[in-house]
Structures are given as structure tokens and as C-alpha cells.
């Protein structure tokens, strides 16, 4: 071929390719929604902090879990509403006593190096999480899931082989749990229970997750990870359901400052970022199609130190009740936070599936009525103008916690004449102080581990290691124990909330919302998935009109 002929052939090929591309663009639509797809299917979002780990069994944060759900696939997945749907397992059967789950794995599931995904790899993964030698901070999650002997194995009292997981054959996995737990299948969507390739982990040691070494069984694989800067994942062609994946590239940019992230979003560098506290009303007005708020399964509350080291006044339920009533939640939610949060009078997040908030007397009063009653309770307890209550309130250093504490301190002062001393502490110090009951009233925030009320209500039990207020009511303990064995625990949970409200065990303040800026072309974000367990393979970028 002469040079000219080569050139012509090359040009022709390029033209055909271009035309093909244009055709593909013109015709690419989403199979379900029929929306036109953008030719560039890449999604870039901001994360606050570097990942402590992206190793499934070591992951301990929400952002790391999002990465792991893209790179790996567990037995079950979640859909956009948070319902449990098949993952590597096509489904499961439960024994009659509710203790043995038998998962059937799909034969078409392969790792990115072509190796079959087997039941044994799930056994390896779960054992690895429990193994004391792994020293995983999330070993406790196996106890939340209720996997038999998890606690004893982690404590080193039993060998890992005693853990309640077994591979019956390559495609059949049996998991035994310690008590019937209706939420168990959902825990299998959590990275701690993901499969592990021990051959790779042994071969590469700590660097098995490096892009050049990693093997994955999820819809994406790791292309680049520059710590403290960015993490890029790209489509994994070996994923069994690869045809359904639309997004080609997903990039997480680590941007510690939320205002810098917002500026970069507005400059078009990001498709999604968090809205800094207090800026939602302005942004919602300026960018109505981009500023969104939806429920996020965390609850914000104040806890009382009811242990022996706590102030005597707080052991009086009337005082606690008065302090709770005098907090005008509407002001906190509408004026201080202004991001679509909801006032809370009970602990469990209102949007937990199947949850119905019981009737709490305080919730139905006006604030004026609450204030009246609070004053009366305070007077009854012996506090008044000549004998004011002095209280110290601690919170971890943050502008929004400070704003809320100042507002509430002011409410207590105006309504009840309570003198509040505010003290902020840096996070680790704060947790230490609170965990050792060296406080009077402290800020708390609790996020659901799974979408069921007990993830919150367990904190009211006297045996909970998260019960930093040392609230202790045997009736609550008994009800929670009963709920564990009940087929329909809702009424028991409601009773627990009612008792906790009557005891003023805590001051529920508000239920969180996720407040985000999202590019109008980013589609299918699962705003209804309360735990915000999202999968990149469900997202897509629509063509902008």
C-alpha cells in the first residue's frame, strides 16, 4: 500500500468509526427509562477524607463501603429502595427455626482473573473478618449479624473453624446465626461479609489491593488510588452482569474542605458534593434542580450522664423531661440547620422501613405547652430562680454542633433559668470523656447499621457498650430481649420508645438528612435507600438537553 492509500484507508476507517460513534450516541438510551445517555459516562464525586481502608474485611466507614460495593459483590445486594435483592447468591432458604440460612451462588459469577466465585471464598472472607490475627475493627459487625460463635472466635476463645459459616459445595453456602434475626440477609450486603481471595492476600500481603494486584468480583475494578487525592474505578468486563452497567468510570476526589468542594462542583469539576451546613436554602433557590435533601438514617441527640459520676439532678426524670421539653426542635431544624432535617421526639429515624413512630405526648404539644410543662416539672424537682440548675454540656468540635449547643443553652436559660456551660472537645478526647462518664450532658449521633429499629433501640439496653448515658430500665431490657425472638417486633419497639420518652432517657433532637448538590444529568441516585448504600452500576449520566 502506498502512503496515499494508507492515508485514505486510515481516513475512511476514522470516518466510519466517527459515524458509528455518532450513531451510538444518537441511539444510546437507558433500557428502562428510555432517557438519552451522555456519550461520556463518567461520574466524579467528592469524599471528605481519605479511606482508612478499602479492604472489605477492614473497612470501617461509609465511603470505603461504597468503594467496596463497586469492587466486590456480596451474597445479596440492595436496590434503590434498600430492599435486599440477589447478588452473587441467586437467593436463600431459611430453616424453620430461623437460624440456618442456605445461599445458592450463581455459577456465572467470576473474579476478574476468571476464577469462579465459590462458597469457600465467602467462608474465607467471613473467617478473615473474625480472625483475631486480622484485628479488624469491624469484627463486631459479625456479632450484629449474629453469626454463630463470632464473639468467641474474635476473642480467641475458639478457632475460626468454629464460626457459623460452611461451604456445603462450591455453589452452596450455609450460615448459622445465634438467634432469629429478620434483618440478617441485609447484613450480607455489608463488606465485612464479602468473599476473600486468600491466594491473592497471601501472595501480595498488605498490597493485595493495589491496582496492579487486585482481583475483584464486582462491577468495577480499581484503576488508580492515590492516597489523600483520588480513587478511580473502571468497569470490570468480567462481572457477570456487565451488560447492565452503564457508567464507565467512577472517580472519588478526596476534598477535605466542603466549601472548596462546593466551588469545584459549581465550576463543573464534580457531579456530586455535600452542601455545607446552612447553605441549603440559598442553593435550593439558586439551583433548584441540583440542591437536594433526602433522609439519612442517623439521629442527633443529647445524652444525660445517669451513672454514679453524673450530677444528682439528672437522676431525676422530671429534670431530664423538663430539659427535653424546653428544646424547641423546630428552631434547630428550620433556623440552625435548614437542610430538610426533621425534628425528633423519639430515637429511631422516622424513615426506617416498617417503622411507625408511637404516640409521644410531647410530640403533639405546641412549644408553648411544652415550655409550660417543663417549668412546672422543674419547679417540682426543686429548681427555680433562687436555686437554678447549673449544667455542663459537651460536644465534639464542629461549627454546627456549636451552633446547636448555643441555641439549646439559650432555650434552657430562657425557659427554665438553667445556666449551661458549653465545652467543646476534639473528637478522640470527646469520645474518651463520654465513654468514661466524665460529663453531665453530651452530644450524641447514631447511624443505623441496618434498616431496622433495633439498630437504634439497642442503645437503651443496660448491657449496650454504646450506652454512654448508662440509662438502665429492666423493662426496656426485657422488651428488647423479647423483640429479638418475636416475629412482629414493631409493637415492642414502640413500647421501648414510649418508655424511653417517658423516662427522658435521652433528648432526641433531630433526624438527619443528606443534603447534596447533584449534577442534573446524574440519574438514578437512590435517595430512597435510607442507609445510602449505592452502587455505581445502577447510576448513569443522561445527555443534557
Amino acid at each position, binding site marked *: 500500500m502506498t502512503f496515499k492509500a494508507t492515508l485514505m484507508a486510515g481516513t475512511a476507517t476514522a470516518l466510519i468509526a466517527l459515524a458509528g460513534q455518532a450513531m451510538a450516541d444518537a441511539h444510546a438510551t437507558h433500557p428502562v427509562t428510555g432517557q438519552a445517555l451522555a456519550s461520556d459516562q463518567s461520574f466524579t464525586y467528592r469524599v471528605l477524607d*481519605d*479511606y*482508612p*481502608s*478499602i*479492604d472489605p474485611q*477492614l473497612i*470501617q466507614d461509609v465511603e470505603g463501603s461504597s468503594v467496596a460495593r463497586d469492587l466486590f459483590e456480596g451474597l445479596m445486594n440492595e436496590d434503590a429502595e434498600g430492599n435486599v435483592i440477589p447478588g452473587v447468591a441467586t437467593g436463600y432458604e431459611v430453616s424453620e427455626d430461623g437460624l440456618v440460612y442456605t445461599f445458592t451462588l450463581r455459577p456465572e459469577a467470576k473474579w476478574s482473573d476468571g476464577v469462579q466465585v465459590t462458597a469457600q471464598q465467602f467462608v474465607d472472607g467471613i473467617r478473615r473478618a473474625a480472625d*483475631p*490475627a*486480622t*484485628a*479488624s*475493627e469491624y*469484627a*463486631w459487625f459479625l*456479632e450484629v449479624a449474629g453469626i454463630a460463635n463470632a*464473639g468467641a472466635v*474474635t*476473642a*480467641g476463645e475458639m478457632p475460626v473453624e468454629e464460626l457459623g459459616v460452611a461451604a456445603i459445595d462450591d455453589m452452596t453456602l450455609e450460615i448459622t446465626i445465634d438467634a432469629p434475626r429478620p434483618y440478617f440477609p441485609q447484613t450480607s450486603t455489608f463488606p465485612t461479609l464479602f468473599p476473600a481471595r486468600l491466594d491473592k492476600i497471601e501472595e501480595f500481603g*498488605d*498490597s493485595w*489491593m493495589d491496582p496492579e494486584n487486585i482481583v475483584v468480583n464486582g462491577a468495577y475494578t480499581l484503576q488508580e488510588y*492515590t*492516597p*489523600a*487525592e*483520588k480513587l478511580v474505578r473502571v468497569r470490570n468486563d468480567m462481572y457477570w452482569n456487565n451488560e447492565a452497567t452503564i457508567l464507565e468510570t467512577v472517580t472519588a*476526589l*478526596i*476534598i*477535605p*474542605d466542603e*466549601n*472548596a468542594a462546593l*466551588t*469545584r462542583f*459549581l*465550576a463543573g*469539576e464534580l457531579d456530586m458534593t455535600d452542601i455545607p451546613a446552612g447553605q441549603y436554602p440559598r442553593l435550593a433557590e439558586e439551583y433548584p434542580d441540583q440542591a437536594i435533601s433526602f433522609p439519612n438514617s442517623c439521629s442527633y441527640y443529647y445524652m444525660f450522664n445517669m451513672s454514679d459520676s453524673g450530677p444528682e439532678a439528672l437522676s431525676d426524670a422530671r429534670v431530664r423531661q423538663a430539659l427535653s421539653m424546653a428544646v424547641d426542635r423546630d428552631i434547630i431544624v428550620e433556623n440552625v440547620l435548614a437542610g430538610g432535617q426533621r425534628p425528633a421526639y423519639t430515637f429511631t429515624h422516622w424513615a426506617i422501613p416498617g417503622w411507625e413512630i408511637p404516640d409521644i405526648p410531647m410530640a403533639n404539644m405546641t412549644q408553648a405547652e411544652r415550655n409550660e410543662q417543663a417549668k412546672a416539672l422543674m419547679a417540682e424537682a426543686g429548681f427555680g430562680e433562687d436555686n437554678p440548675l447549673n449544667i455542663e454540656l459537651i460536644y465534639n468540635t464542629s461549627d454546627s454542633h456549636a451552633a446547636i449547643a448555643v441555641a439549646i443553652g439559650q432555650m434552657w436559660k430562657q425557659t427554665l433559668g438553667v445556666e449551661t456551660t458549653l465545652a467543646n472537645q*476534639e*473528637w*478522640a*478526647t470527646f*469520645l*474518651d*470523656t463520654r*465513654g468514661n462518664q466524665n460529663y453531665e450532658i453530651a452530644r450524641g*449521633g*447514631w447511624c443505623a447499621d441496618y434498616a431496622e429499629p433495633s439498630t437504634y433501640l439497642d442503645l437503651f439496653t443496660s448491657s449496650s*457498650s*454504646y450506652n454512654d448515658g448508662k440509662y438502665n430500665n429492666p423493662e426496656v431490657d426485657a422488651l428488647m430481649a423479647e423483640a429479638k425472638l418475636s416475629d412482629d417486633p414493631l409493637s415492642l419497639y414502640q413500647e421501648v420508645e414510649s418508655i424511653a420518652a417517658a423516662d427522658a432517657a435521652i433528648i432526641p433532637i433531630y433526624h438527619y438528612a443528606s443534603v447534596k448538590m447533584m449534577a442534573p444529568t446524574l440519574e438514578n441516585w437512590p435517595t430512597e435507600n435510607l442507609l445510602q448504600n449505592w452502587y455505581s452500576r445502577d447510576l448513569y449520566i443522561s445527555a443534557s438537553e
Partner: protein
Amino acid sequence: MLSYIIRRLFVAIPTLLVLIIISFMLMFAAPGGPFTSERALPQAVMDNINARYGLDQPYWKQMFDYVANIVLHFDFGPSFQYRDRTVNDVIAQGFPVTLTYGFWSFVVAILAGVSLGVAAAIRHNTWLDYLAVGVSIGAQVLPNFVMAPILLLVFTLWLGWLPGGGWNGGQWQYIVMPVIALSTSYMASIARITRSSMLEVLNSGFIRTARAKGLPTSRIIFQHALKPALLPVLSYLGPAFVAMITGSVVVDVYFSTGGIGQFFVNSAFNRDYSVIMGITILVGALTILFNLLVDIAYAWIDPKIRY
């Protein structure tokens, strides 16, 4: 001279040891630990973790093992916060970043600072002097945490000239804003020191002699006045250089460079003991080294100084 250098290097060893001991004591005095979290970990899990990281050992033993590992293997230990990385990894990844933008900041700060300072001094009490002083005071009082968001707003959002952050292997577009944000206050200090010391030199006897000889002004400034005038600047530059190449929290946080500056603060908040120590030692060693270099440079510039 050589024996002086060797002596200084020997003194550096106990200095670093004292630094390590004090840092260790401060670190363990802070409440909480690297694995303190909202969900207090079950004791069994905590024990496993403590055993893995040697945190179950007495403090003196932890400290001894730590120093021994550094001396014998140059191993600064695993990071407690980033489970898949060692401190060597953290430094190897972050230090080249801050070294790059820190070095350019240093170059910019010296060139701009010295030029401004000299210009102000030779045009003493003219508009040029006032302008130079104004600029340097402005740069000094505008802290970089104010400067950084303004740069981002102007160059990224309004003008769209520069990417808002990231590093991308150190392409120049990603370095510009970090360098501006980091260099300005150093530039201002250098300008002020240069100006005052230049003024002093220009009023000294040997400059008067040079003028009386009829030397051209440019030769007087560059050949005779500049060198002695830079002596005070030089003593400022040693620590400043170390501060710049080890980065800045503000720059790292606003421009997400992935540099090591942010670890100064983050590792302390996270109680990431080994990273705190690794960075403290890095900065300590660099400070000792550059102070030595400054002292050597002194002898080279000023013939009156001999060790």
C-alpha cells in the same frame, strides 16, 4: 570547618532522641487512642488490635522498639489510621508533593521578596517603597486560609483557568494556586527583612566609599550591598525552607494536593501515633539539616564568620 560539621551532626542525634521522647510523652498524654470510636469496640477486638500494633506493651518498650526499628530497618511502623499503609508509604507518597510545591514557593518567595525589598530600599521613601511595603504588608496580613478560597473562586469558578485542586502527578496547572497561597506570606517576610537590612547596609561606610569611588549604582547594589544585606534573610530562610517543603495544612486541605502538610493535623486528631512520630522526626531532621546548611552558607557569605 569539616570537624565543625561532624560535631553538629553528632549533636543532632541526642536532639532527635529528645524530640522523640517528648513527642511520645505528649502523644500518650492525650486522651483517647487511635482506635477510639463512637462505637466503643468490644474488648476482644480491642485486645487483638492492641496486640497487633504492640500497644499492649509498656510505654518505654514501645518507644524503645520504635527507635530500634528506625535505626535498624529505617522502618517507621504501620499507620494506625490507614490500615493498608505504613508510615514510610504515607511519607513517600505525600512528601514529594509538598517538596514540589514547597520548592517552587520558596523560589517565588525569594525572587519576589528580595526584589521587592531591594527595590524598596534603594528607592527609600518614594512611591516604589510605599508600594513594595504595602504589597508585602498586604500579603502578610492576608492569611492563606483566606487567600486559598479567594484563589479558588477567582481562578477556578470565575475565570475557569485552573483546576480547583488535585495533583495529577504535579502538572503545572495544579501547582500554581498552592504556590501562590503558600509563598505570599514568606515573600512578605523576606521583603521586609531585605528592605531593612539593605537600608542599613546602604548607610554603612563601605558603601559610601564605593559611591565616592564613583562606582555605578547597579554595581554597588549587586556586588557590594546585596551579599551582606542577605545575611539576616539567610537565617530566616533555613527554617522557612523546611516549613515550605513540609507543606501546609491549608494548602493541602483547600487544594486536595495529597501532600504531607495535612497529616500534621489529621494524624494528631486521629491519634495515628506512628504517623505523628514519623512526620515529627522528618521535620525535626530537616530543620537540623537546614540550620546547619544556613550556618555553612553564613561562613561562605561573610568572611568574618569562621568556625
